[in-house]
């Protein structure tokens, strides 16, 4: 009975999402209250479930034989489920204000809410098949969100997105088939499920398949050379870019990679092989590449999107160190990056919404007009570049400590890449703040007439995130104690 709740938290948002266009709401307000109530209810259920973790698995339905869609909650899944459930209500609240003038709200919120359920489905998957199923579904339900404005640019972007996702899923599928053939089970087991007797002398094939599978799942994480869809998808409304393209969707990619690396293939067979080096090189390239592109980019949201590309590969870097400490670092950055990047995206959104400025060179002097937003933006920038005292430093520290601990020469190069990327982050984030607060001596403020900070619905989430960056930055002990427990099963 306890296990039923896993099905409920996955299906409830889907169901309530589908009902949004069907229910006869009297006015916009009623609809918003309904949506927020449902999202909060679901988040509360998720946290209730995390407090009181169901031990047994729950099977939703069977395809055939031992192929089934089933749920089970373990440590790794709890982290991911907890993260998205904490963020969704806040992001929804922000979206209410932001979407006021965008049109087609009903459909927007329908897909937005459904995505919540699908993401939780991935977090709770018991085996690789279920995860694959929700992984595909996630691509489909988020497609309309990118298309939302129906402009030519948006349609092109969604097409790119779709092609990348389908391609990625195909590679992931190959991995799944090999796990089915050479593994003892499809379930996620800490340490991996590969049956060495079955593999025999075909280790290299398995490694090749791992690399393919890794690349397939990493398409969602926008790893180089599959990263160009993410900045293009920045054409979507900001709540989508912030929550889905900085957290839910892209981190699903990272989460699935964690699953296949640590729970399906197993790190013992991978560590020290050419497969590890190949994926690590790709990841290191992405870390630097994303930052460099961010530096070159003048469109505000696209710059943040490139920054996401780079930061997501921090997470992947932690994963491909292939030690429990590496996974811990990766999870830490997954959590903290979520907070930092949503916050900076929301700031960008607030600026676009209130000032109508989309490019960085248009932001001169806005710091005086929207002081709260720009102060919070500066804090998030500092957190991203890893100023001690904010959360970015902690996650970077853990990643680097894991890399040094692993005594892998390529991982040392990765540490250097992390720091180069931090420097580039400082450049592309802080130049924005300097521009906004120090526009030059004879700047004419009258050109910015009537621009001011947004209302509480937008500010609330910004302030909560800014506070979270400080709290995690100054007192990270409890979070990492929890993560220690999560990765303890791998030892």
């Amino acid at each position: 009975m306890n296990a039923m709740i896993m099905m409920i938290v996955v299906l409830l948002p889907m169901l309530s999402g589908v009902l949004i266009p069907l229910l006869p709401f009297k006015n916009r307000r009623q609809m918003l209250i309904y949506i927020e109530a449902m999202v909060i209810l679901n988040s509360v259920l998720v946290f209730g479930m995390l407090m009181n973790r169901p031990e047994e698995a729950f099977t939703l339905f069977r395809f055939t034989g031992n192929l089934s869609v089933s749920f089970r909650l373990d440590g790794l899944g709890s982290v991911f489920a907890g993260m998205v459930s904490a963020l969704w209500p806040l992001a929804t609240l922000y979206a209410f204000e932001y979407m006021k003038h965008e049109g087609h709200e009903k459909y927007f919120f329908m897909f937005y809410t459904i995505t919540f359920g699908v993401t939780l489905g991935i977090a709770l998957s018991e085996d690789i098949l279920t995860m694959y199923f929700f992984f595909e579904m996630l691509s489909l339900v988020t497609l309309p969100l990118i298309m939302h404005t129906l402009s030519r640019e948006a349609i092109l972007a969604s097409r790119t997105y779709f092609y990348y996702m389908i391609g990625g899923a195909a590679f992931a599928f190959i991995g799944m088939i090999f796990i089915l053939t050479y593994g003892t089970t499809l379930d996620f087991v800490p340490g991996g499920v590969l049956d060495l007797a079955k593999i025999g002398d075909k280790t290299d094939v398995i490694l090749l398949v791992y690399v393919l599978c890794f690349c397939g799942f990493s398409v969602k994480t926008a790893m180089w050379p599959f990263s160009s869809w993410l900045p293009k998808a920045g054409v979507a409304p900001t709540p989508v870019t912030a929550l889905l393209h900085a957290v839910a969707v892209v981190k699903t990619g990272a989460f699935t990679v964690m699953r296949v690396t640590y729970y399906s293939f197993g790190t013992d067979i991978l560590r020290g092989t050419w497969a590890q080096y190949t994926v690590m090189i790709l990841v290191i390239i992405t870390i630097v590449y994303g930052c460099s592109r961010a530096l070159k980019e003048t469109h505000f949201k696209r710059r943040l999107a490139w920054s996401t590309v780079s930061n997501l590969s921090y997470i992947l870097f932690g994963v491909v160190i292939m030690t429990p400490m590496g996974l811990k670092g990766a999870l830490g950055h997954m959590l903290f990056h979520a907070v930092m990047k949503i916050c900076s995206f929301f700031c960008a959104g607030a600026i676009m919404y209130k000032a109508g400025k989309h490019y960085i060179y248009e932001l001169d002097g806005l710091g005086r007009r929207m002081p709260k937003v720009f102060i919070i933006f500066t804090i998030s920038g500092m957190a991203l570049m890893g100023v001690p005292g904010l959360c970015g430093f902690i996650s970077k520290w853990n990643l680097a400590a894991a890399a040094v601990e692993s005594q892998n020469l390529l991982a040392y190069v990765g540490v250097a890449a992390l720091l180069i990327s931090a420097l580039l982050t400082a450049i592309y984030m802080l130049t924005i703040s300097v521009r906004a607060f120090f526009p030059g001596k004879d700047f004419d403020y009258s050109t910015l007439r009537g621009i001011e900070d947004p209302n509480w619905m937008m500010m609330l989430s910004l302030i909560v995130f800014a506070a979270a960056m400080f709290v995690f930055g100054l007192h990270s002990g409890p979070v990492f104690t929890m993560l220690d427990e999560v990765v303890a099963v791998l030892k």
Partner: protein
Amino acid sequence: MNGWIILPMLLPAAAGIMLLVSSFLEHLRMTKRIKENTPVIVDEGEKKNLHYLVGIVLAITAVLVVWTAWSGERQLVLFYLMKEIPVYFHVDAVGRLFVTIVSIVWVAAGFYSFEYMKHEGEEKRFFGFYLLIYSVLIAQDFSGNLVTMYLFYELLTLVSMPLVLHNGSREAIMAGLKYLFYSMCGAYMGLFGIFFLYRYCSTLTFLPGGSLNPYLAEGNRGILLTAVFVMLIGFGAKAGMFPLHAWLPAAHPVAPSPASAVLSGVIVKAGVLAILRSVYYVVGVDFLRGTWVQTAWMTLTLLTVFMGSLLAYREPVMKKRLAYSTVSQVSYILFGLSLMTPDAMTGALLHTVFHAFIKCCLFLTAGVFLVQCRKRRADELVGIGKQMPVLLWCYTFASLALIGIPPASGFVSKWYLAKGALEAGVGIFGWFGPAVLLVSALLTAGYLLPITMKGFFPGEEAVVSEEKKEPPKGMLIPILVLAVLAVVLGIMPGGLLRYAGQIASACM
């Protein structure tokens, strides 16, 4: 009683933040007013109150700091940043020395700025950041482990950047960004080293002699040495060491003069402190002595010493010349540290103290030339001694001290640096180092003394007014005090010498 450590950091920080908030609110009101086309009124009385407030906070903090530092050992774990890594403060001999220098310079330049900043505007913001930097510097000096020090090291960059940006011109903004990016680059290189030290040292807490774990380090010497070298280059950025020195001549001169004075006098010493702490208190000199890291480090510092002096010699703009001089002089200190002998380290510590006072004094003097005489370039300062004899005498004494002419202070420190070099057993560097220092001293005389000569002896054809116009007392007294310190410490170096000697012998 350990809790007292935190008080001298909190007081200026709180006052600084209060000033910044109030300045920011004022700005918001002003932008609104511009919209309504009403003129902005500057209240003189309010300005005076501001000066009283800042003066009192500075004085109280300085007294508190000195008292905290010199009244015995104190330590305090504030909280745990991560598991096993606390934010930990510990007052030890080095911290005591640094914090005292910082306080003297800070108070002197602070009182000077009351008068000076009338010419620059935005006083509230300036003093807000001024106090904030003071508190960060105190915290850095009192830091008891590498991570705590790194935390305040990065904060220092962030809070001192606005001083460089102060006048808001395009040049200042570019210089500010340059400062930020060089410092960040340096800080991250330092962090790279810290990651490795965290793994290979038994603790990141500062212990004289270091705490490198020989069992872990065995077999990983190559990577560990590389990491330490990267760290040296990184922290060297803040100290203006080649190759990351280029920000210094751009950023220091563009700030208001009291800010340049503290940037050049003490903020660059944050880099020195970072290197000193990581080499002498975490890694330990035994590990580095005789390795390629030491050789490379010595080469870089000597290169910087020579290059800085040469560039200063060729530079016509007064404040820029002083900034290049800082590049050169701080590398004297780093050269002393790179030799890794007690005498050289004593010399380095002494030079840290003397250079702080001297350079601060020189920059404050240059500030007077700038606002009182409207003269930027050194060759315009003809006959200045006729108008401001006291000021120019101060300048001359400070210059003599920097060149190292006995009995002024620079002589003592350079003597120990040279002695240390000869004793260090570093082969060719043993005599080559002192030779470079000597050449650089000649160049120093070449770029500082012409101002004195032209100032007192303008020559026959120059038209110079003989009218006395000494700067206001508020500016002259701090300069005088610093110049006197620069000379007197050279005549009576005994106590300081013993103190530095003790620190050095404890580390070796």
